[in-house]
């Protein structure tokens, strides 16, 4: 049931710890607007985040928020959804949280396809530990831990997710608020695991991938008349193209969700009446007689 809500209904009184100008403000504001548009009450939203600058976002969203250990937001979010599928479940974290320490869980969440939305706030650096290279930093990126230039190739999270069976893969830019609200809303409404990777510049440490740089280097796939987000090969081509960075819904399909494949009962697990008595429980002893 949709209630009439405004973004303010999802605001907390907690002051932000982010630097002024941080791309994460754009993500937070878009998320609150998207939630308000969808009209789920804060009590029915579970929001799980990882560790890092991006992980702090769970403290700024008025909901049932969970700020866990580094890289493990997706197992937590998946289980919250399985425990109570009536909830709107969202996970968020940075490129380090999702594509480095939590990369394994990312792949497995994609292949499980729970009805959970995952927002990857990609600033291509480790901000909170003061600017080391991240799994999405460019090769050659010079930092305190890569003084001779980052020797690793950047990971292409969406392309990897596409290969793993991703059912909703989108990318946004935190300086494009309206488009980002739409992307996040559509992602939450998608039945299945939806990934929204958001280019979210770090104004303090990343002097290469700046707002200005992104404005020059992004485009929206829906500007291309022939782009079909249900076409896997086309999506893969766009995701892996060496040119400008594609934004928008890059791929989507209607693969069965984890909840449906697990044949979850209609009533959420949290609504089950628990009792130790009963013939059904008792009967389990008979095979041991």
């Amino acid at each position, binding site marked *: 049931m949709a209630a009439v809500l405004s973004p303010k209904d999802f605001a907390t009184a907690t002051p932000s710890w982010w630097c002024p100008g941080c791309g994460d403000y754009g993500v937070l504001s878009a998320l609150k607007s998207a939630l308000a548009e969808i009209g789920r009450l804060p009590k029915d939203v579970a929001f*799980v985040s990882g560790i890092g600058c991006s992980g702090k976002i769970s403290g700024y969203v008025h909901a049932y928020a969970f700020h866990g250990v580094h890289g493990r937001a997706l197992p937590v979010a998946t*289980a919250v959804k*399985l425990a109570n599928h009536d909830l709107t479940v969202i996970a968020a974290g940075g490129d380090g949280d999702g594509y480095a320490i939590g990369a394994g869980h990312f792949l497995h969440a994609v292949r499980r396809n729970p009805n959970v939305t995952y927002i990857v706030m990609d600033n291509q650096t480790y901000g909170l530990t003061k600017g080391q290279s991240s799994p999405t930093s460019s090769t050659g990126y010079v930092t305190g831990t890569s003084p001779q230039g980052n020797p690793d190739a950047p990971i292409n999270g969406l392309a990897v997710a596409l290969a793993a069976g991703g059912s909703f893969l989108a990318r946004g830019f935190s300086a494009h608020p309206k488009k980002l609200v739409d992307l996040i809303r559509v992602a939450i409404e998608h039945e299945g695991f939806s990934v929204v990777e958001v280019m979210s510049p770090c104004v303090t440490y990343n002097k290469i991938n700046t707002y200005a740089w992104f404005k020059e280097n992004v485009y929206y796939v829906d500007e291309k008349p022939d782009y079909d987000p249900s076409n896997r090969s086309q999506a893969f081509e766009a995701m892996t193209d060496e040119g400008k960075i594609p934004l928008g819904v890059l791929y989507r399909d209607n693969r069965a969700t984890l909840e449906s494949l697990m044949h979850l009962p209609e009533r959420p697990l949290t609504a*089950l009446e628990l009792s130790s008595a009963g013939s059904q*429980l008792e009967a389990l002893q008979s095979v*041991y007689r």
Partner: protein
Amino acid sequence: MILNDIEIMFGGQAGDGSLTTGDLIAGVFKRMGLEVYTYKDFPSRIRGGHTNYVIRAGEHPNYGMADAVDGLVAFDLEAVEAHIDELRAGGFVVFDNTSETVSGPLRRADVTWYDVPLAKIAKEELGLELARNTISLGVLAKLIGMDPAIVRADVTRVYQRKGQKVVDLNVRAIEAGETYVERHFAEFPSGYGLQARPDGERLLMMGNDAIAYGALVAGCRFMAGYPITPATDVLEWMAQHLPAFGGVTVQAEDELAAINMVLGASFAGVRSMTATSGPGQALMTEAIGLAGVLEIPVVIVECARTGPSTGMPTKTEQSNLNHLIFSGHGEIPRVVLAPGTVEDSFYISAQAFDLAEKYQCPVFVLTEQALCQSKATLPHLDVGSVSIDRGKLQTEPVVFGDYARFEFTDDGVSRRTIPGVEGGMHLAAGSEHSPQGVITENSRNRTRMMDKRMGKLESMRPDLPRPIVHGDPAADIAILGYGSNRGPIVEAVERLERAGVSTRFFEFRTLWPFPEDEVRAFLAGARHAIVVENNFTGQLERLIRYVVGPLEGMHLLNKYDGKPFRPIEIIEAVERHALLRAPVPVQVRR
């Protein structure tokens, strides 16, 4: 003739079916009204490698292994080589002499040898070499006097799902074994006999099944785990049974995911658990710290095996005690419980969920391979007696702003809202937080929060499983131990008593928070204390020393060879440490 007191060992190659036959024998013993304990000693591989299965039966409940094996059924020479020394003088060996012979010193003169060409009979009379296992059951049944009707009924039951043809074949195999004994060994009795007793409502259950069943009865409706020996049985049991009760089992991608899923499901309001062993436990450490600081109830079953690293995955050990009590960065309240029997595994597992939810913290159920993968007979389990107390779970609406998820309370436990509850929205953060859940590094708040959380270790004490004191509580000689060692220790205590030596035995069922007062009270007046455990460093002994001070008369009986204790080892330790030495009063620090 020795009546109703026998330990049989089946020895052969992994994957050759001897485990199925071992289970069959255990079932027959149980239906003959005897008390049964089984112990699986198998290699960490699927096919090949020496394996053995010990089945002990008698009139005494809560067994472990006996001092020695009475009857060895050896499918190959390797089994004889490996176990002939474990045989009791006067015992017997059934040996498959189809292609090998036993000679020289291996062919002990003080045991009876029954050479039976099992494989040959299987091939020639039944056309299937695999049937030699069932033939050996027929041989054994005849030699020790198993009830033929029960044997046939059990064989039928076990093979029913494979069709009548397979049932018929196995019944013929039984007959072939019996006939062979009648024809060749009529003049050579084994010296062992069985007399049926009423079976009643008893069960024959494996420790891991009892743990899983206890969890289900206690309302656990979510399990996430990653397959690992010897804990996988719990995951498989829950995967089979949870759906019928509306629950969910997830095979996670690793133990990091498994424990974080358990946190997520519990945060959402479902009673949740995982089960693992040492290596998985190590991976779960960080998230267990998170459960401590988020005050989320989680139950973690630790089925210990030998470590470190891969160790010996299928062998028993008690070397994870320190890990459960002390692992993790930072300090959290946690509970470590340890059942001593299969029956207790059910009740302790069930109780773990109440403790976890009432005190909103991680609760470990610690067991080990020699208990969790062993089967034992036990009385009918009283499921209705299991309590489900959800503590301060708050499912009614609260007033946002008034409600504080981590409010300071006398017992350290705060009302816990779950998603969906009006007004209860909050941030559950692994960062230090205020009563309202707001992240803060304020040092006064930090101190109060630590005091609140750690204070639960004291407030929970009245609810913790009590230790059991066995034997004569006033005896000079005290023994302390837990887990699978309960069986051999209790047996040693009773045998010593019959020999005129009184001992007292403290069976820990709660290991953390450490039962300091109970241990002090127990040790008072003792002149010798022997701590029995399966590890190198004496982890329990050190804990006791840490609490009650250095003890003059305190001794460690430990081993770390992957095998459980036999009662004689405990009796010998009592002789060595207590009976042959001048008594020294045990000093208890006050």
